[in-house]
């Protein structure tokens, strides 16, 4: 304790008192009080120089800390800007692809609408498009909305150090989608991404990817089907049970609503470069080779 007491009580450097004592004993001519007049100018300048040095030290330290901070935030802002730019560009391209698909279907309808064979083909295309998910559709159904916990870090069931607790994960979304299919959904879209047979739902870090596209919460799952039956079957099934468990354990909020007129976009037709229909030759000419003269 004596060390701490010493720190608290003896705050003034001993040497000041010592010097004062030795000065007064050596030469009582100059009493140890406020008489700087008698000092040579060089001696009074020294403390000033030291103070300038202290100021410079402080200024440099402040500057240095600020520079380091600016470096860090500048880099982060740069990366964030890049992400925003790329996302905007990709959104634009996706929109353009959707527009072109619409255009193609209009032209297709016109080209096939003339004779009986064309009409039959058009009907076939429509049913195939409905089944494969490449055709935009509308109809009654239900909307399941999932969201992260209000405060992800402090959810009840959260284990310390697990940032994913309190967040909707890919597995939750998979369970919901599978539950909806099992309940008789005919078409499903997550945040406007239509699901096809080839659409994967998976996690990458803290983000959930649907068909390679990162989505952010809230996740809105639209499913077209018999609304009443869908709702009952879904909430009764594994998907619904999972949502209820998530709600009570991790405080993940969810809602299920019926909708009379849901409208789902079509998905891009998947590229199948290797798969050919069975019974045909493997090196059958592809569509665009056929079209060229």
């Amino acid at each position, binding site marked *: 304790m004596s060390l701490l007491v010493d720190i608290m009580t003896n705050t*003034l*450097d001993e040497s000041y008192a010592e*010097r004062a004592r030795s000065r007064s004993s050596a030469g009582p001519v100059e009493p140890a009080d406020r008489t700087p007049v008698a000092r040579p100018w060089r001696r009074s300048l020294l403390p000033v120089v030291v103070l*300038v040095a*202290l*100021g410079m030290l402080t200024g440099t330290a402040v500057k240095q800390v600020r520079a380091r901070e600016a470096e860090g935030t500048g880099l982060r802002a740069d990366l964030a800007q890049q992400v925003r730019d790329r996302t905007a560009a990709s959104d634009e391209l996706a929109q353009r692809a959707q527009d072109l698909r619409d255009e193609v279907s209009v032209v297709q309808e016109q080209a096939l609408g003339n004779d009986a064979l064309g009409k039959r083909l058009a009907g076939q295309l429509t049913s195939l498009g409905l089944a494969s998910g490449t055709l935009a559709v509308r109809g009654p159904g239900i909307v399941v909305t999932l969201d992260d916990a209000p405060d992800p870090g402090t959810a009840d069931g959260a284990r310390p150090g697990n940032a994913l607790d309190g967040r909707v994960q890919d597995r939750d979304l998979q369970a919901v989608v599978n539950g909806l299919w099992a309940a008789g959904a005919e078409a499903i879209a997550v945040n406007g991404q239509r699901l096809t047979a080839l659409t994967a739902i998976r996690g990458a870090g803290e983000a959930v990817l649907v068909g390679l596209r990162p989505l952010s919460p809230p996740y809105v799952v639209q499913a077209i089907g018999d609304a009443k039956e869908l709702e009952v079957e879904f909430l009764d099934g594994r998907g619904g049970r999972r949502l209820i468990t998530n709600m009570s354990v991790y405080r993940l909020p969810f809602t299920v609503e019926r909708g009379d007129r849901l409208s789902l976009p079509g998905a891009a037709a998947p590229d199948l470069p290797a798969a050919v229909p069975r019974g045909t030759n493997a090196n059958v000419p592809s569509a665009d080779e056929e079209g060229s003269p």
Partner: protein
Amino acid sequence: MIPAVALVLGVVLGLALEPTVPAALQPYLPIAVVAALDAVFGAIRAQLDGIFDDRVFVVSFVSNVLVAALVVFLGDQLGVGGQLSTGVVVVLGIRIFSNAAAIRRRVFHA
């Protein structure tokens, strides 16, 4: 008056000139500033007590800065640099505050 002006002048110079500090010395700069502040507060109190001595001031200033930097450097080498700088800041902070209290008592008689 002159000391205050000198201090401000130094800060302005430091901010404006941006002297380059060797990267190896950079971590010790903040701790050196705190140590130097302790010397300055000690000097102000001595001045008010009427026992100020410029040589003591300069020597205590320089040695404070060097010792503080040395202690932190040693701590860095031993892997306890963070804790030691906390210790240095706490001890010097206590001294600065009690010196400031003494100065306040003397100036305002309160």
